[in-house]
């Protein structure tokens, strides 16, 4: 599904990613763990095309997309839910959802998504800015899914969200990934969340992937200390 080879990127002249290699197979849920500043978000932003790769290659379903513009990658089926959600503050919840499928042809996915996320049903006319953090996260996820992506890039979906909603999002994601045949790359700091969802966890340090572990190993204190300890 997604192959990343020797990927390098950065901001201006400051390199952040130094040779990232990994692959994700179709239907897999892969987690990415690492401290702040290790390049997790930069990795996602380079995969979406927001940041230009300075080296290496990204292949999506066999096609080289390393130099492709951001909106073209989205149209190929790469969905992205950024950290901080990026809900349109002045658009209603319904218009936010419609933006998610605005360039896609075919039937609207909005009714189906409102069924998946009943919490949004009562909010459709509310402006995006009036939603709580948890509601915004759910809306951002639903908006992304409205475009019917095949690969979903999630950046810290649990950040700043109360625990009860985190559990809901976790259950929803597991259900949706199966129902919609999604492949997911999940950047997260919440160990419990990532352990519950991911089949494989990549550990990132200083702009490279230093190890791949199983979610079970996340409950092993020695391993957690080795890669994520202070």
């Amino acid at each position, binding site marked *: 599904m997604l192959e990343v080879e020797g990927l390098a990127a950065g901001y201006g002249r400051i390199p952040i990613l130094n040779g990232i290699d990994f692959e994700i197979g179709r239907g897999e849920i892969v987690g990415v763990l690492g401290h702040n500043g290790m390049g997790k978000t930069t990795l996602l932003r380079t995969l979406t095309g*927001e940041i230009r790769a300075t080296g290496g290659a990204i292949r999506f379903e066999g096609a080289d997309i390393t130099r492709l513009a*951001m909106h073209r990658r*989205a149209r190929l089926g790469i969905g992205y839910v950024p950290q901080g959600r990026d809900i349109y503050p*002045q658009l209603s919840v319904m218009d936010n959802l419609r*933006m998610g499928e605005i360039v896609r042809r075919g039937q609207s996915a909005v009714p189906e998504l409102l069924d998946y996320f009943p919490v949004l049903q009562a909010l459709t006319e509310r402006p995006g*800015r009036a939603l709580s953090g948890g509601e915004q996260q759910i809306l951002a996820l639903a908006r992304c899914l409205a475009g019917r992506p095949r690969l979903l890039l999630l950046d810290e979906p649990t950040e700043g969200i109360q625990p009860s909603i985190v559990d809901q999002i976790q259950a929803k994601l597991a259900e949706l990934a199966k129902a919609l045949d999604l492949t997911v790359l999940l950047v997260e700091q919440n160990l419990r969340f990532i352990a519950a969802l991911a089949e494989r966890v990549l550990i990132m340090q200083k702009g490279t992937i230093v190890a791949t572990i199983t979610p079970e190993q996340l409950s092993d204190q020695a391993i957690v200390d080795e890669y994520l300890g202070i």
Partner: protein
Amino acid sequence: MDQVANYLFQIGFSFSIFILISLGLAVIFGMMRVINLAQGEFLMLGAYFCTLCNHFGINLWLSFILSALAVGVFGIIVERLVIQWLYGRIIDTLLATWGLSLLLVGGVTTIFGPQTESVAAPLGNVQVGAFGFPIYGLVMMAIAVAALAAVYAFWRFTRYGLIVRGTMQNPTISAALGVNRSLVYMLTFAFGSALTGLAGAVLAPIVGAYPTLGIVYIAKAFITVISGGHLPLVGTVSASGLFSTIDGIVATVSSSVIGEMTVLFVAIILLRLLPLGITGRMTRGV
């Protein structure tokens, strides 16, 4: 009775001018946050294009549409050559568009000379009691209201309008949702340019076309859009309504110069009291 009609006409006429000259800027500055100092010259180009059409015997109403299209195409050229490299860089945009403004004034003076090219105002007068009102003034009001309604409907109810509103709020996430933001920016700039070209063409029968035409109107347009606040359309309409009422009344009882001075004075006080403009605290609308 005649006196009331006279005031209403003056206010309506003033309103139509405020709306016409500000609508394009409401799109380019209000929505896109591009400070286009050449905006007045876009207006001037619209007026010249209208006089050219007139020269070749083209129907006046058709010339309005052609002028809007021509300045819209000109807007595309300007956006691709200059503006697209400068989004988010306010000082650079100011300098570049100021330079463009000088270039356009100089260029037009070289080609057409400094004199005023005129288009005969059509339609004659309608008599109400002691006052005769030019019917063309009423037509201008109709055009202003129609342009406003069209822009509002376009923004609020069409798919493209939604794309623009979303993309202006957050271009990056729009691109992540598959929107070609560069294209959206280009077309939105062209749309604002076309509205300005239309305004210039509609003004041509009453003020004519001359190279420095834009300078007369650009300050008024910026003041209107800025006083309107962050909701470009609602703000521009409310600011236009306020300013034209003041302008219409004061200009009728004293003179048009005093009318314009009063508008400026009110705008200064308004922005002192409401620094974010009339719509500063409103959260919904366009």
